[in-house]
C-alpha cells in the first residue's frame, strides 16, 4: 500500500515536473531575441498561403468540431479565409469590405471604418504572421516549449475582451513563424487553429480575393 502511494506521488511529481518543463517563462534576453526573430521573418512576408484545421472546443461536447481549409494573405491587408471541409464557406477581408460566400450564396458587408472589424482584421493578419507584439493593445507573456515558443496575449480593450479572453500563438522555434493560434473565449471554451504547409511569398492569384 505504502509503495503504491510512493509510486503515485512519484508519478505525480513527474507529471508536475513535465508540465513545468512544457511551459517555461522566457528571460528578458530571450524575449528580446524571440521578438526580433519573429519580426525579421514577418517583415519579409509579402504574401502567405497555408492550410488550416480548426478545432472548436466546447466543454460540454464529447468531440471538438473540426473544420478545415485554406488561408491566403497578401500585403497590405488582403485576407481570404476558405473553409473547404465539411462545407464550403469563405470570408474575404478586402478594402473595408467583408465578402462572404456561403455554399455559393454571396453577400458583402461594408465595414468601412468599423473599429472592431479593423481590429479583427489586424488581429488575424497579426496572428498568422506573428507580428502582433503591441504592448499598447495587449498584456503579453512569453514561454518556451520543446522546439516551440509561445506568446500569450490578453486584450486591454474592453470591447475586444468581451469576445476574446486570451490569444495564444505558438511559433516554430527554427522558422519563427506561427504554427498554432488559440483563441480563448471568456468561458474557457476555445478555438484552436493549426496551420500547416505554409508557403511564404509565393505568387497568389487575385481571384482568391474575389467572391
Amino acid at each position, binding site marked *: 500500500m505504502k509503495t503504491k502511494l510512493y509510486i503515485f506521488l512519484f508519478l505525480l511529481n513527474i507529471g508536475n515536473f513535465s508540465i513545468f518543463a512544457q511551459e517555461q517563462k522566457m528571460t528578458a534576453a530571450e524575449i528580446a531575441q524571440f521578438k526580433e526573430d519573429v519580426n525579421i521573418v514577418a517583415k519579409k512576408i509579402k504574401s502567405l498561403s497555408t492550410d488550416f484545421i480548426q478545432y472548436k472546443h466546447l466543454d460540454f461536447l464529447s468531440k471538438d468540431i473540426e*473544420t478545415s481549409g485554406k488561408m491566403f494573405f497578401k500585403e497590405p491587408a488582403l485576407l481570404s479565409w476558405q473553409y473547404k471541409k465539411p462545407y464550403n464557406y469563405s470570408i474575404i477581408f478586402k478594402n473595408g469590405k467583408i465578402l462572404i460566400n456561403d455554399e455559393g450564396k454571396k453577400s458583402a458587408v461594408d465595414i468601412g471604418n468599423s473599429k472592431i472589424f479593423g481590429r479583427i482584421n489586424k488581429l488575424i493578419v497579426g496572428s498568422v504572421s506573428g507580428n502582433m507584439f503591441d504592448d499598447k493593445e495587449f498584456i503579453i507573456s512569453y514561454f518556451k516549449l520543446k522546439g516551440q515558443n509561445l506568446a500569450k496575449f490578453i486584450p486591454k480593450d474592453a470591447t475586444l475582451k468581451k469576445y476574446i479572453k486570451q490569444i495564444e500563438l505558438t511559433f516554430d522555434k527554427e522558422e519563427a513563424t506561427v504554427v498554432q493560434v488559440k483563441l480563448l473565449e*471568456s*468561458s474557457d471554451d476555445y478555438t484552436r487553429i493549426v496551420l500547416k504547409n505554409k508557403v511564404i511569398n509565393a505568387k497568389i492569384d487575385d481571384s482568391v480575393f474575389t467572391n
Partner: protein
Amino acid sequence: MQKSTIQFLLINCFLAIVLVSCGSVTKNYTPKKLDKTTIEVPYFSDSKTDYVYKTNITVYGHEMSGIFIAKKINDTTHRVVFTTEFGNKLMDFEISENNFKVNSIVSELDRKILINTLEEDFRLLLKNKYLIQEQFENEENNIYKSSDGKRDNYLFFSKKDQKLEKVARSSKTKDKITITFTLENDIFAKKVVILHQNIKLKIELNYFKSE
C-alpha cells in the same frame, strides 16, 4: 323592429364570415380514434450525441449563418450554442420544459424579443415527449394534437413510413411555427427547417459530419 332584424342578420353574417375565414386549424383534417396517448421524438434526445448543424437564418430579408450546436446535458435540459463559422460564440443557452437560462449572448443579439422567440423555437425543437389528446388524419399524414398552454402542438407522421415529418405550433386558428424534418435515419434529422408564420423568420439547420 325591421331595422334591428337587419342589424341582427348583418351581425350574424359578419360573425359567420369571421368564423369561416378563421376556421380551426384542424378544419381540413378528419378526426380519428386516438391510438396513443404519448409520443416521444428521438431527433435530439441522445445524451451521447453532439448535434452540430450548419445554420442559415433569414430574418426580414437579412441573412446570417453560423453553427448550431445542441446537446442533452441531463434528463431535462439541453445546452444550445450558436457560433460563427470562425468559432466565436454568439449565444449560449440552457433550456428545458420549464426553465431557460442565458449563459452568454453577444450584446448585438441581446434583445428580449429575439431571445423569447428563440426560446420558444428551441424548446419546441428539442421537446421529446408529447401528451396526446386528439388525433386526425389527412391524405398523407396521421396528425396528433398535444395541448401546450395557450398553444397546441400538432405532430404530423407520414402514413407511408410512420415518421415524424413536421411539428406545427398553432393557436386555435393559425399555425405560428412549423418545424419540418428531413431524416437521415429513424432517430436523426439531417435537415431541419424552423419557419415562423407571423414574423418573417426562417431557421435552416443542415447537419455536417465533423471529420
